[in-house]
């Protein structure tokens, strides 16, 4: 273990200053970086935590991580954009992930995607202008036994039809309308 921050009066490693915004989530992020002793190798773990906390990785956040891990911003940005899991744009209130794995594909996942694209007017990877729904595709959820499978707001649903997908979108819209009223 490295010397805990603050011991010997050295303070935390340079750059690990508390974020000026005072946002509490930065403290949790800092704890993760400390757990990995601010090693540059921990970049992917840190990005995972950051995305979990903030929902997406905005530039300011990437800058903060780069400073804290003493990495060039290009490296942090390069990693964040290389992996599909990281999102640099905010997600919508609801997310619908269409699994495009082979098993789902041969059972008509492309039709599900086309239906929801037409209904929402957005493509995979985009969010509706009102920020209500994000549409994503997955490489394979590994739920091939119940293909075609989708993920609605984090929960997997199997044996989906185009009606199932469209009903879910309608349900979200109706509920949100009631909530705003």
């Amino acid at each position, binding site marked *: 273990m490295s010397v805990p921050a603050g011991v010997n009066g050295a303070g935390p490693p340079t750059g690990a200053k508390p974020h000026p915004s005072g946002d509490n989530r930065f403290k949790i992020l800092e704890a993760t970086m400390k757990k990995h002793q601010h*090693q540059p190798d*921990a*970049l992917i773990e840190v990005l995972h935590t950051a995305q979990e906390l903030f929902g997406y990785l905005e530039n300011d956040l990437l800058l903060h991580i780069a400073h804290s891990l003493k990495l060039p911003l290009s490296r942090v940005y390069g990693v964040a954009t290389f992996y599909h899991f990281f999102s640099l744009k905010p997600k919508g209130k609801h997310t619908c992930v269409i699994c495009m794995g082979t*098993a789902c594909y*041969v059972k008509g996942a492309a039709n599900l995607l086309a239906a929801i694209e037409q209904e929402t007017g957005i493509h995979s990877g985009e969010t509706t202008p009102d920020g209500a729904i994000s549409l994503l595709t997955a490489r394979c959820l590994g739920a091939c036994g*119940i293909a075609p499978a989708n993920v609605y707001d984090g929960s997997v649903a199997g044996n989906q039809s185009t009606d199932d997908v469209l009903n879910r979108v309608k349900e979200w819209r109706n509920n949100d309308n009631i909530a705003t009223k």
Partner: protein
Amino acid sequence: MITSPLNEVVEKETAAAKPKCLRCCVAAGCLSSGSLAVKQSLQASVTEAGLQDEVHVKGVGCMGLCSQGPLVQADPDKVLYTGVTAESAPTIVSALQGAKVDLPTTDLNHPFFTLQRPIVLENSGRIDPERIEEYLVANGYQALYAAVRDMTPKDVVDAITSSGLRGRGGAGYPTGLKWALVAKTPSHQKYIVCNADEGDPGAFMDRSVLESDPHRVLEGMALAGYAVGATQGFIYVRGEYPLAISRLQTAIKQARRLGVLGSQIFESGFDFKIDLRIGAGAFVCGEETALMASIEGKRGIPRVRPPYPAESGLWGQPTLINNVETFANVAPIIRNGPDWFSSIGTGKSKGTKVFALAGKITNTGLIEVPMGTPLSTIVEVMGGGTPDGSAIKAVQTGGPSGGCIPAHKLDTPVDYESLASIGSIMGSGGMIVMDADNNMVDVARYFMEFCMEESCGKCIPCRAGTVQIHRILTKIHEGKAGQEDIETLEQLCEMVKSASLCGLGQSAPNPVLSTLRYFREDYTALLPKASEVTV
């Protein structure tokens, strides 16, 4: 049975066993069909009937028949209930008390079950993956105990070598050779890496093993660590598998608590620690050098080999990389001896292979069969053919790196060499069945789109070649191509195959080449008729 300090735990666990048991599948497939509610309902009904001392309700891993979930098996009655709901769960409890009930069940004497030979999946669906005690009762960690107490590291390497085990990740490299190479490379620090980045779409064997029996993988890795002289292991697992990640975290914690991982394991001089690394969604990270770059926190970009990871891997140190299923085979080999293992399978492919059956097939799910089982036995006899009884057109193995096998080649036995000889690969074990509705040009285009988007962009043949192949396939699919395009397509495929840097590019043309070989009529049917071509 070997006496180990863990026997106390085993005795306590055996003494607490109840005469009857309801096993409810809580792996990802059944969970998404609502098996957690089923388990709660079963537990509530058992308590309500006052049977809590007699009936044990437990969550277990995958029972194989994923398409008919949620599944509940009643012991010792040997009844497998299918499509169980929270509402029908109380009826299962009354059936356990002898009541005649009318619930959907499945025939456990169906070839789907009887033709299987479980080694990797021996505990899957039987034990609670979140309790190390149950793994110990199922002879868990005994191989590790025997190895660190009574065997030299060389003995362990020799046992793996003579068992004939080959890598289950796709290429089929002899596992013993790899271990021996890492063992003999001198270094003060070596690493063990478990490749759990199961990226092939349509494959879910590794997910299932990790969710159903995580300790088996940890034990295999610890044995590998002892054999090659490594003290640190990493499991690189897909971010898309949250359940597998949480079960692994639980398993690692439990193993440390009982001292089967950590320092001075079983009071020997052997230390071994395992950490998880969560992938972030890049198919290329299944390639070993890209995977190591990713563990080091970098972009997952492959590099030229040699040097192979066995000489220079993670942080430049000797590193042993095997996939989940390979590690899952290690403990049984040490426990039962290499001869036992090599008596299963064919001349060059020993042991068993787990396959994920999916697509247009009646019994979707997970099976484990001896190497050399004919494809037709797997998809027709065990899988039950297509749901609507129509003819099977092709079976796709090996995902985006594999090929489409036509119906007339289904008598091919599944082993590394036979599958390669018909233009496909064993791959990690995904098996997708297709029928006449699936156009092979569309299938080839689907896989090429996948490879095109997943290409890391480092080498030109793969980066640009996959784009061009995809473009030609789209042109053919839209009926705008001519005969010369098919010729260009073939040339381009050969070029990408021979000139790409890593396995992704080298195997990306396989789906195109195999469909061109066996389903050329699907391509030519899309070419405009000669009379329509304006000169």
